[in-house]
């Protein structure tokens, strides 16, 4: 069975087409591609957790996570993900962005717990719940980290404004991220509790 080329192939085509149409020339296009890939290797570093996570999964980590939630009184999918959202936002606001993540927390612990809390065996529902677990991690991270002073985005904003003659302290920027952080928690939190109502039916 031959499958069609996937997104990796088309992104490569897009890079080559952009470079060539944009007038970079073949060699510079390849060099730009090589340098950017090499400089962004840190994005792929979290994969080094896989051998540990795999070893623990082999010995029942996911099943254990599910069993704990199954015994907890009043634990629901929505409330569990709401608690995780709060934890992720608060820890990211303190600069602790690497203490959780999709490979190290969501797949082996959060997603099995959220699935177990629903008590549902329907594969479609379980897929939606797993997607919600990933979403809670992303939303918590994005709308928590900008409250931290030394995070990359705050430093980028500050450098850009300084280049344009506006000098600001990091704290002046990071306090402005707080209203959006609260709003994100309210909006997504309400959706998670709404998810519980949908799961009950």
């Amino acid at each position, binding site marked *: 069975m031959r499958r069609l*080329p*996937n*997104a*990796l*192939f088309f*992104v*490569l085509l897009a*890079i080559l087409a*952009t*470079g060539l*149409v*944009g007038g970079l020339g073949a060699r*510079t*296009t390849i060099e730009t*591609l*090589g340098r*950017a*890939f*090499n400089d*962004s*290797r840190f*994005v792929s570093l979290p*994969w*080094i*957790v896989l*051998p*540990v*996570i*795999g*070893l623990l999964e082999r*010995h*029942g*980590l*996911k*099943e*254990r996570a599910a069993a704990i939630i199954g015994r907890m009184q009043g634990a629901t999918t929505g409330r569990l993900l709401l608690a995780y959202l709060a934890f992720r936002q608060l820890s990211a606001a303190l*600069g*602790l962005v690497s203490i*959780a993540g999709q*490979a190290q927390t969501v*797949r082996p612990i959060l997603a099995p717990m959220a699935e177990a809390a629903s008590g549902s065996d329907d594969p479609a529902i379980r*897929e939606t719940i*797993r*997607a*919600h677990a*990933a979403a809670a991690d*992303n939303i918590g991270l*994005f709308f928590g980290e*900008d409250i931290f002073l030394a995070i990359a985005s*705050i430093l*980028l904003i500050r450098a*850009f404004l300084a280049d344009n003659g506006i000098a600001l302290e990091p704290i002046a*920027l990071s306090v*402005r*991220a707080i*209203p959006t952080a609260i*709003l*994100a928690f309210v*909006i997504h939190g309400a*959706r998670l509790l709404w998810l519980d109502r949908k799961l009950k039916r």
Partner: protein
Amino acid sequence: MITLKALYMVAGLMFWAFALLSAADRLNPKRMGNALFWGLLGTSFVVGDRLGDFGNGLLVVALALVGGLNLPGRGRPATTSEAERTALAARLGNRLFIPALVIPAFALAGTLLGKQLIIAGQPLLEAKQVTLISLGFGVLVALGIGMAWLRPAPLTPLQEGRRIMDQVGWAAVLPQLLAALGATFTAVGFGQAVGEILSAVLPLGSPFAATAAYCVGMALLTMALGNAFAAFPVMTAAIGLPLVIHAHGGNPAVVAAIGMLAGFCGTLMTPMAANFNIVPAALLELKDRLAVVKVQAPTAMLLLIGNIALMYWLAF
């Protein structure tokens, strides 16, 4: 001083090990595709700094072709059954969480204390990367604990790691390739062109219209580029700075901070932000690769409207 390079070496050796184990996996008919894919990625991590930009570029083209044309298959190394795992979970209990929690504990300790570790007048860890380096140490310590306690065969962690890695497959390098696409867009001035077009066609006479255009523009350009950091300088130079801040007198701290967060709403809605949206779908074995984006979209849309309102309210 320990820098990120040491960790790249560890990651590279792991990918090379995945490549060798894949090559020996007789149950996978596409094993040579897997070996080539993880082998090339490992090469980038181990010797990427010595290949030069052109050499790295050729390596990435090869990697994207091998992965993009689906030459790798999915390795399925032997593992425990579901029943065995349930029994093991009951026997081993909550101690199973200890190695998993060692990793964030090290990241936490490293972030808080890492900069104070000084040996012979030299900082032990590269200051800018303490968290990632500590995370790497945490992984090695967690692996040591797991090996000493569970006593698996020596290759078991690598085989189990390979199982998860093959589930992710080509999506694993998509984030880095998209970063390269972003760099190419920047090199040819794509973002600037988009910014100029947007500021030319949109009616931006009132503070509200300019605010809304800036926030929506941040979200849309972030969706196209996959990265709010790439969109921020472009949209802020095109609309945020000249119109919202200078022409209408908006508070620069509010405009810039909330503008970036409007971009983050875009990140939640695009497959181009692959490490947040596509990789988790692969990791969680979701049939619909866009499932995470779909779940996030309603929150992102509401929050984008909220950001426009907050910026308008707080900046003027």
